[in-house]
C-alpha cells in the first residue's frame, strides 16, 4: 500500500518534469520498452537493449537532491525501512526520536530509516559534425546514448536527453539524433554554462569527442553541482591513434578549416602527446569530482565498449 502511495506520488512529481520533456517513463523490464521512430535503421538496438538488461548504471554514494523514490539509497533517509539508530543531535527531526528507547535508557536517540531515492539523469550528447567523421563514430555515439537512456529508465530515473549542437536542446527520444542534422559548434562550454542543466544536481552524462578547444577544469567546474559527472569520449581510430602516412590535408569537420601535414613520426608523436594530455586532464579532473571518464574508439566492439565502461565504473553488473 505504501509502495503504491509512493509510486503515485513519484508519478505526480515526475509528471511535472515530463511536461517539459515528455519522456515515456514506463518501467523498463526488458520487454515493454517502446520508442518512437522505430522505423529508423539502428542496427545495434537489440544488442544495446541486451546490455541494458545486464548492467546497471553506477549511482553516486552521495547525492544532493534526488527525489524520493523507490530506489534504496546508500544514506539514511525517510523511508519506513528501519536501518539503524544513533544519538540525537540538535537539528535531527524530532519525529524520528525513539521515545521508547528514551524511556528505557534516558538517552535521546533517533531512528534511522533507509533512504529511498529517485535519481535524476541528464544525458547530453554531442551532435556536432565532428561526431560524424566516421559512420562508426556516429554509431558508437548512438549506442552509448541509447544505452544510458535505457539504463536510466531501468532505474526509473528522471531521465533528460539533450543534444549539444548549436544550442542545447531537449530530445524526446534517443532515436531523435539519428534524424537530426548535425550542427556546427565551436566550443560548447559557454552554452553549457548558460543552461540550467549545469547548475542542477543529478547524474550528468556527457557523450562527446571533447575535440573542441576547451579547458577540462572549466568543464568540470561547470558541472560542480552534479552528483556524478560521467564523461564518455568517442574518438575515431585516426583521432585516437593515427598512423604514419604520407602527405595529408586534415579538415576540421566543424568549420572546414584545414591543415596540411606530413604524417611522419615526429608529427604523430606530437599529436599523441597533446591527446594524452587532454585525456589525462579529463580523467584526473573527473576523478577529483568523484566522476568517471572513459574513451571509446569508434572501431571498438560493443563488448570492449562495455568493458571500458565497467573499468571506468560508469556501470556495474546487475
Amino acid at each position, binding site marked *: 500500500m505504501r509502495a503504491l502511495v509512493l509510486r503515485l506520488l513519484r508519478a505526480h512529481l515526475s509528471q511535472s518534469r515530463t511536461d517539459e520533456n515528455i519522456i515515456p517513463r514506463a518501467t523498463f523490464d526488458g520487454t515493454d520498452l517502446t520508442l518512437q521512430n522505430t522505423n529508423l535503421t539502428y542496427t545495434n538496438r537489440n544488442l544495446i537493449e541486451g546490455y541494458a538488461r545486464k548492467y546497471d548504471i553506477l549511482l553516486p554514494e552521495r547525492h544532493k537532491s534526488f527525489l524520493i523514490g523507490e530506489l534504496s539509497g546508500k544514506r539514511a533517509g525517510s523511508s519506513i525501512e528501519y536501518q539503524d539508530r544513533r544519538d540525537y543531535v540538535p537539528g535531527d527531526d524530532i519525529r524520528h526520536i525513539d521515545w521508547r528507547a528514551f524511556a528505557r535508557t534516558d538517552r535521546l536517540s533517533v531512528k534511522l530509516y533507509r533512504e529511498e531515492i529517485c535519481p535524476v539523469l541528464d544525458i547530453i550528447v554531442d551532435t*556536432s*559534425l*565532428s*561526431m560524424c*567523421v566516421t559512420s562508426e563514430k556516429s554509431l558508437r555515439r548512438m549506442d552509448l546514448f541509447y544505452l544510458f537512456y535505457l539504463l536510466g529508465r531501468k532505474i526509473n530515473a528522471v531521465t533528460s536527453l539533450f543534444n549539444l549542437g548549436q544550442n542545447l536542446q531537449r530530445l524526446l527520444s534517443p532515436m531523435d539524433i539519428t534524424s537530426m542534422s548535425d550542427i556546427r559548434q565551436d566550443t560548447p562550454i559557454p552554452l553549457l554554462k548558460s543552461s540550467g542543466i549545469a547548475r542542477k544536481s543529478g547524474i550528468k552524462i556527457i557523450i562527446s*569527442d571533447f*575535440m*573542441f*578547444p576547451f579547458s577540462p577544469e572549466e568543464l568540470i567546474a561547470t558541472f560542480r553541482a552534479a552528483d556524478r559527472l560521467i564523461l564518455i569520449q568517442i574518438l*575515431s581510430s*585516426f*583521432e585516437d591513434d593515427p598512423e604514419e*602516412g*604520407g*602527405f*595529408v*590535408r*586534415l*579538415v*576540421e*569537420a*566543424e568549420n572546414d*578549416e*584545414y*591543415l*596540411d*601535414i*606530413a604524417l*611522419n613520426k*615526429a*608529427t604523430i608523436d*606530437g*599529436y599523441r602527446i*597533446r*591527446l594524452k594530455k*587532454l585525456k589525462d586532464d579529463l580523467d584526473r579532473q573527473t576523478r577529483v569530482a568523484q566522476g568517471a571518464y572513459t574513451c571509446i574508439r569508434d572501431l571498438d566492439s560493443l563488448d570492449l565498449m562495455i568493458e571500458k565502461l565497467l573499468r571506468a565504473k560508469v556501470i556495474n553488473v546487475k
Partner: protein
Amino acid sequence: MPYASEFVTNSLGNSSRFLISSFSFFIFHFSSPWGLLALLSVPIILFLHFFRERRMIRKIGGLHLWEFASIKLPSGRRFDKLIKNLPLLFQLLAAILLSLLIAGLDIPQTGKTRHYTIILDDSLSMQAAKENSPVIKAKKLALDWADKKDRFTVIASGLEPRVIAGPFASSDELAAALDKWEPQSPRCELDKAVNLASKFVTGEEKILFITDDAIQAEPFDKILATCALGSPVSNSCISLADRVRIYPGKDKVFVSLQVFDDKEKEIAVSARIQNQIIFQEKVNLVPDKVHSLSFETDGVEETLEIFITDDDLSADNSVILPPVIIKPVYVNFSGFGDFSDYFKKALLSVPYTILVEEPDRAHLVFTTQKDFTSKNANLRIYLFPEAAEPENSALAQGRDIVFELANPLTENLSFDGVLWPYVPLQFTPVELPLISHQNQPLLFLESQKDILKTFHVNLLWDRTNIYRHPAWPTLVFSIVEECREVIPGLNRSSFRVGEDIALGVEPDPKRKKSFSLVKDKEPFAEYEEIPAVLSELNGGRYEIFQEKDLLLASFSVNFFSPDESNLMSLNSRKVDLTKLLPATLVQARRNMLLHYALLISILVFTGLSWVYHELYH
C-alpha cells in the same frame, strides 16, 4: 680507351672524319643522341606535379591538436608554387642530367697523334727461310719502329685484303695482331689491298708496304713506301698432284715437281698411306722445267700423302689426296625406238654411268613423252619431240646452227655437217635458248624449276644424222657430267689454295642444323646453315660434320702455286720510315670526369629531392 669518333688531319691541315657514329653540338658531344628522348621525362614530371592529387584529405575533429605540425606551403599562384617547390626542381634537374648521361654527353678530351697505314704481304713466300723469314723480319721491324703514341691501320694483302689491326689501332693492338699473323695466301693481290688502304690515308700520306718482293709494288710507287725484306732462296715444290680412278679398285696418281734454283737438284718423292710408304723415287729436277711422274695404288679408300725433301718453304713440299669421289649417274631413255643403241653406246662410254629401266630411279632422263612425269626428283630431263610429218618440219644444217650461250653442254662443239630437222615454233620463247637456228627456230632450250632442269631438244630423231657425228659422244658426255655435278655431294676431294669450294652436300633433315668444319682434326669453324661455298681456305685436310658426328664431306686443300713457290725472285729494299708523312690524328677521348660529375650530380639531386620532400611533407 678509344673514343667512338676520331678525326684525322693531314699535314696540310685538311681534316676528314672517320667512324661517324655520334652527334656533336658546339663543344658538346653526344654518343647516343637518341638518349635525349629521355628529356620527355621532364614534361611528365611537370604534368604529375601539376595534376596529381598531392594530399589525401581526411576529416577530423580537434584540428587544434594538429596545429603544431602545420606545413607552410609556398604561397602565390601555381607557377610560383612550382618555382618554389624545391623537390620538383631537384627532380627536374636529376631527370635532365640523367637524360644527358643516357645521351652520352661529353666534352671530349682531345690529343694529337700520328696515324700510319701499313700493308703486309700476306703471301706464303713471306714464310720462306724459316728462322730468318721475311715475316719474322717484318714483325721485328714493325714493333721496333712503332711508337706507343701512334695509331696504326694494318692490312694483310692476300687474295683478298683484310684488316688485321685497327682501324686506328694502338701499338699494343698492333703487336697482338702481328703476333697472330701467319702469311698463308697463294699470292698477294696488292691492287685490292692498296684500294682498301687508300680509304684510311689522306693527303700526302704514304702507305708502308712490307713485302719480300719489291717489284710487285712498282706500279704503286707514288702511294707506297715499300720495304722489301726478302732474299733469293732455292726452293723445290710439288706444283700439282691428283689422283683419278682408272678402274674400280685402282687409282692413278699424277705428280708434277719443279725446282727454282740456278742448278739442278735431286730430291726424293715419297707417297704414303697411313704412315706406310707406298711409293718412293729420287728425281733430278732441272730449273725451269716441270717434272711429272705417276704411279698406281690399290688403296682407293685411303688418304694418300705425297711429300718431297723438305727445304726453306715447307708448305709446298707435301700434298694430301683424299679418296676419289665417285658419283654414278643413273640414266633412263625411252621412246627412241631403233635409235636407242646410239644412245646406249654414247652413254656407256661415259665413266660411272648406269642405265636404268625405271625412270623413277634415274638422275637423267631422255624421253619423247611430252607430258613426262616421275615420282622421283629427277635432276635433268631431256625432252625430244615425237615424230612429225615431213611437210611440217624444217631443217637446220651445220654452220647455220647458233650457240646462244657459253654453256658447258655445248662448249667446244662443232656441228659442221650435222642435219638438225625440227618442228618450227614448237616452243615458246620463255625458256633459255642454248642452240638456235638464225635466231628464229629454237632448237635446244633450258627451263628450270628449282634444281630440276628440263631441256627441250627440238630435234626430229628419225631424220637427223647427229648420232653419227663426232660431236654426239661429246655432247652426251657433257650432258652426263653436267648432271653428275648437281648430284648432291662434292665433285672433287682435292682443291688448291684460293679455290672456291662448292660443297653441294645435303644435310640430314632429321638432325639439328649444327655444322662444324674441322681442319686437321681440330675445330675450325661452326655454322648454323651449311655454307654453299667455302673460300680462302688454307692448306690442310678438312671435314664437315653435322652435329659433330655425321660426316657430310671430306676434302683437302693443297698449296699449288708455282709462282709463289719461286723464291728466287725475292729481293730487299730499305725504306726511310721518316718520310711516310703520317696523318695527324686528333684523337678524342671520353671525358670521364664529366661522366662521373653527371653521375654524382644525379645522385645528389635525387637525394636532395627526397630530403626536401620529407622536410616539406
